[in-house]
């Protein structure tokens, strides 16, 4: 991904990379400039007024002069007129931006269902045929340059889905489906995070949108549709452990583990992080996370595993096969 | 230094009533504030009803057309209690002791009847307050109203006792007026509650 974007501030929306966010960014900058101008003008007026017109303080109790109450209304009228012009401009620009980003420029290439959970994101890729649908978590791959329609809902409490460089926030509300769309014009990884306070681990609920060139995306999609390969060698005992100990909450397609409380792990190794961006997905990161999630993400729904050292190794070895 | 020297236009020329009297009493104005804020409380309750009704759409209510066999006549009973209250207040104003006490007593009796019928109405519902959000709101809103009826009855009872003991005169009966305006408010609120639960589903089909 030669032209991949890697912003210095991964969560900033002062520079954006797609048609859903760009018009908003222009408006944001416009309002920032306008705001700074207003602040500057009023500050100068107040400071200069106090300095220029200042009366040296007399001793306490001494009667100071008192000026008449005439005049001054022209300040209010002129100030109001200027305010009104700025407001009308802001409102017109706002409505123009809303019209511009209201719907995607072309038919969406892909429809995703994203569900906010305490504290991770479930992403369901809707396929044309029943067998073409798959589920992944936290890392959402999309093709570059194509609008993506996203249907958002909440599994438990209200979360808010936000990828600053691509689109503003939309809440994921249990019992409702909200629609949003986004499009990335450049390949790259765009970080996002839950922004509606949702409990203990609200802070550790990142999402990543990975925009791939179309061919890479298709390859990724094909990979995700595959079932997990049967484990062999040392990983085989890890698979048994997984089914027994993890299968109630996690799904790995292809083995008898179909839990839906936690993320689908069928292609765990295709993801760069664990636990919604909390831990890097390395061997040591994975073992540490499984051994005691509560140390890394206190309050997370995943209990400590209480596995022995060798068992932990076997389980990790199995998970490492889930490419 | 008495009134003769009073040369300022803003100073009163004549005698001023002392203490609370009639609608000049601050207590009356305080009651109006209470009624304003309580009206808003019911407005928010009914907003909640309509909001969830619209959000959840048809089929939300387990009883599309709530029966009015008890609620209809009961509404008339409560409305007539307001007439009785007005009559009693008129008695207090005119110094007709019988009308004053009788009106208050009749109001209390009618209010109590309303309360009893309302309990039967609750029992006649085939569901409890935790049966769903419609049931929750039905019992909460009518429960809120019932609580106001009880407060109103308590107020009127205390005022009736004070009236019987002879605390009030034709020029000094603010507690009578104040409790009765509260009672009228409780009746008016019932009309809104009744319209919401019993009439609006019929209008919406």
């Amino acid at each position: 991904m030669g032209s991949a974007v890697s912003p210095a501030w991964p969560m900033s929306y002062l520079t954006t990379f797609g048609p859903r966010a760009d018009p908003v960014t222009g408006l944001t900058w416009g309002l920032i400039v306008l705001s700074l101008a207003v602040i500057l003008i009023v500050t100068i007026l107040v400071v200069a007024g106090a300095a220029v017109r200042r009366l040296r303080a007399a001793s306490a109790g001494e009667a100071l002069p008192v000026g008449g109450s005439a005049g001054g209304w022209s300040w209010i009228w002129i100030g109001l007129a200027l305010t009104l012009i700025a407001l009308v401009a802001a409102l017109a620009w706002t409505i123009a931006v809303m019209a511009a980003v209201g719907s995607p420029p072309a038919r969406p290439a892909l429809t995703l269902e994203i569900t906010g959970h305490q504290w991770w994101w479930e992403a369901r890729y809707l396929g044309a045929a029943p067998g073409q649908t798959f589920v992944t978590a936290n890392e959402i791959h999309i093709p570059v340059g194509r609008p993506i329609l996203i249907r958002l809902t909440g599994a438990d409490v209200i979360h808010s889905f936000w990828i600053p460089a691509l689109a503003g926030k939309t809440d994921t509300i249990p019992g409702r489906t909200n629609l949003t769309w986004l499009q990335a014009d450049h390949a790259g990884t765009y970080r996002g995070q839950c922004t509606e306070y949702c409990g203990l681990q609200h802070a550790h609920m990142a999402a990543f949108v990975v925009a791939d060139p179309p061919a890479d995306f298709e390859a990724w999609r094909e990979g995700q549709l595959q079932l997990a390969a049967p484990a062999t060698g040392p990983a085989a005992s890890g698979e048994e452990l997984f089914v027994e100990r993890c299968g109630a909450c996690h799904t790995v397609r292809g083995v008898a583990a179909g839990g839906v409380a936690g993320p689908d792990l069928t292609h765990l190794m295709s993801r760069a992080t664990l636990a919604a961006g909390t831990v890097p997905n390395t061997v040591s990161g994975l073992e540490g996370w499984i051994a005691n999630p509560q140390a890394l993400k206190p309050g997370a729904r995943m209990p400590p595993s209480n596995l022995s050292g060798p068992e932990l190794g076997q389980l990790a070895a199995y998970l490492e096969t889930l490419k | 230094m008495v009134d003769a020297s009073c040369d300022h236009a803003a100073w009163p020329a004549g005698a001023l009533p002392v203490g609370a009297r009639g609608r000049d009493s601050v207590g009356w104005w305080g009651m109006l504030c209470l009624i304003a804020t309580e009206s808003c409380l019911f407005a928010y309750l009914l907003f909640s009803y309509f909001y969830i009704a619209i959000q959840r759409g048809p089929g939300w209510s387990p009883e599309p057309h709530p029966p009015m066999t008890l609620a209809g006549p009961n509404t008339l009973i409560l409305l007539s209690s307001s007439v009785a209250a007005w009559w009693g207040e008129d008695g207090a104003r005119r110094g007709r002791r019988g009308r004053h006490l009788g009106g208050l007593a009749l109001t209390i009796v009618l209010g109590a009847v309303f309360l009893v019928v309302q309990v039967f109405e609750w029992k006649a519902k085939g569901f409890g307050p935790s049966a769903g959000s419609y049931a929750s709101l039905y019992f909460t809103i009518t429960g809120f109203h019932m609580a106001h009826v009880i407060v109103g009855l308590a107020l009127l009872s205390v005022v009736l006792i004070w009236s019987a003991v002879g605390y009030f005169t034709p020029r000094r009966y603010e507690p009578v007026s104040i409790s009765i305006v509260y009672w009228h408010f409780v009746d008016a609120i019932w009309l809104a509650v009744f319209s919401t639960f019993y009439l609006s589903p019929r209008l919406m089909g």
Partner: protein
Amino acid sequence: MSAAPNSAWEDARIPRTARVTPDFPGPRLEEIWARAPGLKGWIGDVDHKEIGKRYIVTAFVFLLLGGIEAMVMRLQLAGPDRRLLSPEAYDQLFTMHGVSMIFLYAAPILSGFSNFLWPLLLGSRDMAFPRLNALSYWVYLAAGVFIYAGFVVGRGPDAGWFNYVPYASRTFNPGVNIDVYALGLILLGISTTVGSANFVVTFLRTRAPGMSIDRVPILTWGTLTASVANLLAVPAVSLAFFLLWLDRQFGLHVFDTAQGQPLLWQHLFWMFGHPWVYAIVLPAMGMVSDGLPVFCRRPLVGYTPVALSTVATMALGFGVWVHHMFATGLPDISLSFFSGASLIITIPSAVAVFAWTATIWLGRPVITTAFLFFASMIVLFVIGGVSGVMTASAPVDWQLTDTYFVVAHIHYVLIGINVFPVLGGAYYWFPKITGRMLSERLGRWNFWTMFIGFNLGFFPMHLLGLMGMPRRIYTYPSGMGWDTTNLIVSLGSGLFALGVLLFLINVAVSLRRGEAAGDNPWDAPTLEWSVASPPPPYNFAVIPTVASRHPLWEDRLRETEARSRLDEGLLLARGRETLGTSALDAEPNLILEMPADSVAPALLALGLAALFAGAVLTAWWLAGAGGAICAGALIFWFWPNRRHADLPEVADG
């Protein structure tokens, strides 16, 4: 000259007038209005000045508690991945910080100033309902203690001050934490409601003769507007919390996902919440409108537009609640409407800003500490205002909302438009309240430390928001570009806290050693400065008669022929009495008999506290006992005045 004590009570009488002389008022008024000695006198005191002081002190204590909570959070957030606090501790801290500042400090502090000042500003001897006033304070205290009791035992509210469901429902938040919050806020709502009703009736019925509604100080417009709004808005939040409590306690289904509607919570909460924001700034803006001109040595420019804009802000404020919900997936048409409505609120705010600026330019400012706080508030108000305009634009808000940009905005609004005017008001009115001046020298240090600390601590939060830092996170990873800015924010807020400490030192020192103030140290124009500092318990020896907005400047302004009369007026000394006047023109129409001190309000508050404590602990016997105490206190309270009935029947007139 004065009426004989306990002379036969009359149904109506022609009130006597008197002239204030060196011999008058003698001790008689003092005797009538003084409070009884001892604990019973202290508990039963209904003097608005005493209640106002209690409000101010209590609110300040909550400000300090909220500030300490903030400082602990800033320690945690000073750098990435810090583990000083557990998430549970952080969540309770940020919730309690919001609850303390918004509910237990910002509104009560203004009630405190208004309570102390209103009768003095309006030329009355007390509020319309002195005992209700005491009740309002005691219930406020009880609610604050109630909520903090939960926090102290580790069961404080932890779902944010906004307390969204379903997170606050029993399913996801099974502890008693949310019940404490829900019931505590309903209790506080009772206090706010009775206090507001008191302000409304006081405004309408007890202004001095001649003080028509176009002559009252802007502070009273601010508090009146806030009070009316409270009467209309507080039921929404009390109801929301009550319904939530029913859901949690008795398994009702109003807010749940399966059968109810979680978004209803947000509507009810913000229908209250947005007007509330104006309720906690408008009286403070009134302080600036009244205080700033004193130091500019001229009347406020544009009294009428400023008064009208106060009311207009609130009227519009009832129509913008949805701008807190721009990301909830509402249709575009609704977003456009609420964006437009939110932008329009700028207009009345702009009126005030330009009126204040013009007052500085057309006056001759005397740079005192109070002036510095008032004048700097204009700048902070504008910063908080323009960031509000940005969030009012729905598409921009999709990016800004729930980031630190909004944290910056709310603090510029609440600290800029509440704390700074309140501190200015404290410097301005401290002499009236205590009879002593605050030190101006320390005051300068106090102001500049707070001003620099505030801007250093909060302006960079705008940048954090623009760099995408979400609110309400207990920690954050490195590499987001947030580390340095967060450190600056923590340091700045520490400096700000130091400034608050300097204020406390100034108060503590000045209470003992401050220069004696005299009646009118600032040469200010309004009625409170015509009486002694601190004012006597009866406020005014005779009821003043008012001819203009600036009774003490009339001779110098020479704008009308008429003159206010402050040293001659109605005496009203047959017991605790003050004058009732008509609502618009303030023409006398009643002699109000004011109640004696009473322990009934404190008793009622105690009963309410027991009732609510019983409910939260599900100790129904306690709730029942509390209810019984309430009923008893109420009957005792409202026992009618028998002597009204004992009068011989005489015809009117």
